[in-house]
């Protein structure tokens, strides 16, 4: 089997793993960000402090450290996470922490009148948040969330450090065997660019669909 056949075949299986990680981690990270961001603003002293602590920890840790704690650290207390899930959970915690800040900022940017109007028609705080504040805040946070997911696609390569056979890990292995760095990493770079562009396209489509006409 020649180099390209072997490399591209392996890369395809790695691509499936990379896609699986992103397709699970991106929506979960967005949900976690929404939850933490909302808790920061409306959670009262306890929930707000809890959300702040989670955000501070996972924005403060380098992602690689988070991945090592999840994979190697937890194994010391007999919690064994498979490499794939250690990576996914790490991505969710990292992106969730960042997205929560975008969501918090967007919520705070919604005019107070929206909240007053919601309360004036008898909405409960939860109804106000779900039906009035979040639908507007999410629209405002979407470009930043899109950016975070594009970034997640790039840092998904760090999963190699805990042994996930994703595209970067496979490329690195091939490079150490064949020493074809330019060919291998150029193909890899193109794949990351394509994944990033697809993600950007999807978010732009969603932004357009839910845009409030002006």
């Amino acid at each position: 089997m020649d180099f390209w056949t072997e490399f591209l075949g392996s890369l395809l299986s790695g691509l499936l793993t990379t896609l699986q990680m992103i397709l699970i981690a991106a929506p979960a990270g967005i949900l976690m960000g929404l939850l933490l961001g909302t808790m920061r603003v409306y959670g009262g002293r306890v929930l707000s402090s809890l959300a702040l602590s989670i955000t501070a920890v996972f924005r403060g840790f380098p992602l690689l450290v988070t991945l090592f704690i999840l994979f190697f650290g937890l194994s010391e207390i007999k919690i064994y996470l498979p490499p794939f899930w250690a990576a996914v959970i790490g991505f969710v915690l990292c992106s969730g922490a960042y997205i929560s800040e975008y969501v918090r900022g967007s919520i705070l940017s919604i005019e107070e009148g929206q909240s007053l109007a919601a309360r004036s028609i008898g909405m409960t705080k939860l109804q106000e948040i779900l039906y009035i504040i979040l639908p507007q805040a999410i629209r405002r946070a979407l470009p930043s969330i899109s950016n975070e997911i594009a970034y997640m696609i790039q840092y998904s390569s760090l999963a190699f450090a805990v042994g996930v056979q994703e595209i970067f890990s496979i490329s690195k292995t091939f490079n150490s065997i064949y020493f074809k760095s330019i060919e291998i990493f150029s193909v890899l770079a193109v794949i990351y660019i394509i994944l990033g562009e697809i993600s950007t396209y999807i978010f732009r489509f969603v932004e357009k669909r839910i845009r409030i006409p002006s």
Partner: protein
Amino acid sequence: MLKVEDLYKSYGNVNALNGVTFSLGKGETKVIVGPSGAGKSTLLKCINLLIKPDRGRIFLEGEEITNPSTNENKVRQKIGFVFQEFNLFNHLTVLGNVMIGLTKVKRIPKEEALEKAREVLNMVHIREDLWNRYPSQISGGEKQRVAIARALAMEPVLMLYDEPTSALDPQLADEVLQVIKELSSMGMTSLIVTHEMNFALEVADEILFMSDGRIVHTGSPTELLSSPKHDLAVRFLRLGGINGFLD
């Protein structure tokens, strides 16, 4: 219908309400007039429980709504509130704005809510071709009439208007005032804060003059026009270009 007893509210050292007492009968329309900072908006927000008064009591249909055990959300459903800045929900269409209280708060089925929304939008003269537009796509006067429709849809027993035309030019303001006048003449109990003296004289059963958090003078339009007894009343009538009473 509404009874306000000895209401106090302060923000730090500023006393916004300084012992306000008045009542409003079913079907009556009263207008509150006064300089900026007199406590007019604070009074309306206290009545709708958007602001908690420091002291005093408010009764709506005989029930004390300032009682701590009161379900504030249920009370607010009975009191329509129209804001100076419209405060329409930006992400919802005209129909969405009117229907959301019905479907989410009152949990009325969508078809029924749509029927009610149609009815109130027609009452405030919003053309059908505007119903699917967003707030950013309609004029200020239309926005304020949609805000009135949103409040009306909840079938309130009392409507509160907080300077409903102060953000509008005279022509658009007139459209809104016309709607408020029509609702009052249909028997909707209303409490209106406005600087439009001509409108106040036309629509009010009684005008309350507020200054420094107190009601300093009250009078029916006829009394005010024949012999205004308070400096503030004379000042506001003059500012409204109403000088006939001096003849």
